């Protein structure tokens, strides 16, 4: 068992070339903050990127930032904050859910890992995920070749977008060495409008109404009763809360919140939450804090059409004991199983029955992760295409083999 901790991309290249020649698999690791996601791996060696650090280019006026893949996300986010900017896709921190501490002393993930797991957050609804903001990459393929794709400008259609292909590839196609992201101005202010006491179906209807208005709602979540008290330290009570976030320039936010109140005044009791408390709520939703109980019971992350997901949850409840809450206008469901059984087949069957989507088992014991597909299984033609693509990048199966199997 050897852990390689290269500090340059040249060292990464020679490590991967060696592994390719020896046909010996490598586990590709940043901070290991999401190591518990995916099928457990049995690789003899580990390629640890946490020493490959540093922001190599940051031009706020050009809305662009480049960094070496092992650079801590926390460090980059601090730099962006100092310049009034942000990653608009709001990458989540899996630390609390997977047993670590929030922030983990700056070890809550690397920028390469952000892309490899295609992170996003509540603002995904309006601003997209990591895949929507990546501009360019350099990487080493499993063939032991250093290649690049994309560039450092925000508009570019030169050649295939291999940068996007790295999103959600979990280190199975190539080892990222450098990434370039689009960055955007942070909003001047934010206010959250909460509607209290709604059941799932009324909440989903209210969120659809809000998102179908010109109020430019950037995030919409629903926390059913029992869940609401687990957000922001229980500060906002335990009544169900349907939350709509409005961000932007001060006068515009005031105006749009008023418009939403007019629109939703009859839906239920309304409450305004501004500034820091609003940010805390969305951070907790982003990081799935309601299920960050230090336990190991299975947690699923499910993406479906916003109008369908709560029907699936209702159907699931008739057969299994689950807790659930919703982000992305209802389309993202965080599901916590109350028993140890992840109920994978039941859940995935119901998703298919309710218009399709996908489920990822983001927290589970190693035996469960070894026994069932953590990532959504694909239909045969698509699975075959994905396998061919993997073989074109990593013919010897040396990069995180089996992790996405």
């Amino acid at each position, binding site marked *: 068992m050897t852990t390689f901790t290269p500090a340059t991309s040249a060292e990464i290249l020679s490590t991967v070339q060696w592994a390719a020649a020896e046909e010996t698999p490598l586990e590709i690791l940043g901070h290991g903050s999401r190591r518990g996601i995916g099928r457990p791996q049995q690789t003899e060696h580990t390629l640890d990127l946490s020493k490959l650090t540093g922001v190599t280019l940051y031009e706020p006026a050009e809305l662009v930032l480049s960094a070496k893949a092992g650079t801590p996300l926390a460090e980059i986010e601090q730099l962006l904050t100092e310049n009034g900017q942000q990653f608009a896709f709001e990458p989540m921190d899996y630390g609390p859910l997977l047993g670590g501490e929030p922030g983990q002393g700056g070890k809550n993930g690397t920028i390469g890992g952000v892309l490899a797991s295609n992170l996003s957050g509540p603002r995904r609804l309006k601003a997209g995920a990591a895949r929507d903001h990546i501009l360019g990459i350099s990487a080493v393929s499993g*063939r032991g070749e250093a290649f690049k794709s994309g560039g450092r400008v925000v508009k570019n259609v030169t050649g295939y977008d291999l940068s996007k292909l790295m999103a959600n590839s979990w280190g199975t196609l190539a080892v990222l060495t450098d990434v370039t992201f689009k960055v955007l101005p942070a909003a001047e202010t934010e206010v959250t409008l909460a509607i209290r006491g709604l059941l799932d179906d009324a909440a989903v209807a209210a969120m659809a109404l809000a998102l179908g208005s010109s109020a430019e709602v950037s995030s919409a979540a629903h926390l059913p009763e029992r869940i609401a008290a687990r957000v922001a330290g229980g500060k906002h009570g335990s009544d169900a809360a349907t939350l709509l976030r409005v961000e932007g320039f001060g006068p515009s936010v005031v105006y749009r919140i008023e418009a939403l109140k007019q629109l939703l005044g009859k839906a239920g009791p309304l409450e305004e939450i501004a500034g820091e408390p609003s940010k805390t709520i969305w951070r907790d939703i982003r990081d799935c804090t309601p299920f960050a109980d230090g336990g190991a019971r299975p947690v699923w992350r499910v993406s479906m059409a916003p109008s369908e997901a709560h029907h699936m949850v209702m159907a699931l409840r008739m057969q299994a004991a689950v807790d659930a809450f919703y982000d992305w206008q209802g389309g993202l469901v965080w599901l916590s199983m109350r028993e140890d059984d992840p109920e994978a087949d039941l859940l995935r069957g119901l998703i298919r029955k309710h218009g399709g989507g996908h489920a990822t088992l983001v927290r589970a014991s190693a035996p469960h992760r070894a026994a069932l597909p953590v990532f959504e299984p694909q239909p045969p033609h698509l699975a075959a295409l994905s396998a061919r693509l993997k073989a074109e990048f990593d013919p010897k199966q040396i990069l995180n083999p089996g992790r996405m199997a």
Partner: protein
Amino acid sequence: MSGLAMPKPDAETMRRRGEIVADMRIIVPGEGVVDTANEMRAFESDGLTAYRQLPLVVVLPETVAQVSRVLKYCNDRNIRVVPRGSGTSLSGGALPLEDAVLLVMSRFNRILAIDYPNRIVVAQPGVTNLGITIAVEQEGFYYAPDPSSQIACSIGGNVAENSGGVHCLKYGLTANNVLGIEMVLMNGEVVRLGGSHLDQEGYDLLGVMTGSEGLLGVVTEVTVRILKKPETARALLIGFPTSEEGGQCVADIIGAGIIPGGMEMMDRPAIHAAEDFVHAGYPLDVEALLIVELDGPSVEVDHLIGLVEAIAYKNGSTTCRISQSEQERLSFWAGRKAAFPAVGRISPDYYCMDGTIPRKELPRVLAGMRGLSEKYGLGVANVFHAGDGNLHPLILYDANVPGELDKAESFGADILRLCVEVGGVLTGEHGVGVEKRDLMPEMFNQIDLDQQMRVKCAFDPNHLLNPGKVFPQLRRCAELGRMHVHRGQVAFPDIPRF
């Protein structure tokens, strides 16, 4: 046509043309097969009209099953296929090949679903970009990416080219607004990527398909995100004595945290051509003209207009008009939107380029272009998507003067090399196609290009789908798949534990 090498026609395919046409008529009965030279003439080029070629046969399928059967038929018999939407590509992406079936998707022209609660539209690929907006505008919705050909270009073609438009700095490109597609692979297999939910499971094949220029698969259905129209939009028309000041103004607007709905710049030749043509009231004594459009609730727009006006003043603007009515806003845009035809009035022909540069390099690139303009003896006018650094130099030439097209193409290539040199790219939104194909090595080395071609191999191992586009030199997949490992060269005991 200047010296563009296309794949050599396959003699066996050419010899069997009659049989292939007959078989196509069996797969696509009725009016769906066009094989006379006269009728095929309409398909011999796309928006890059300098290049023309009649295809082997034109096939216009109506169903996914027909697309699948055509592709499988061709795959089994080693026949090339060129897919085509509305044929508006500016880079020759839909340029036919002499020995290839031209698969035209224009009969896939229906909208399949409008879903307001989930804010999506499901459309067949032949529906026009504007057609999607028209289908939902009564309820106040629209589809955000707006390439200037939106009245004609198809949504399937938009996926193939990852089309942008004036509003993409704020609202994203096609890739950011498409949630799912159904596509047919060259072997006839039908796969669905994404859907009405967010994020595709597994590898982001949807991301790679978007902008793949018809080389990976044929799109048969598209699911897009629609947005509610902003309550209002207003524009500022700002003139500067130098392009440096205009560029700094753009940087300062973004530095102030403002992402305008649209931000366009024109240089002096483009301003004059546009003003002479549409009389938009553009100032003629400025070197750079900036149009900044702000959209959203009127309280926000009014607030931001004040901020932008102050930033413009600080940067030495000599004129700044603010639209007071919808009519006036449209008049600001009239000149910009007519810039291409306006340039067409002052020159017999023009050649539109499409590089993207880091915005701060604009003065250097404009100066370089002036030098090149003198070197080649051809004029150039510039329109610029200033927010995202996407530059459209229009090179003025006369195709009837022998050698001038070649000269214009060389001029264009030099401009794109300059874009790459300053940290930019060959194409921001028009695609590589055949036009910029041979310039790819300016941006990518052979390893980069080989890895892109290996992606192609996963989708189409025989290089039958739209060959001759994007890649300067096709390499066989078997050859690309070979690994040159030097076992023992980096022996395990010697490897440093960094």
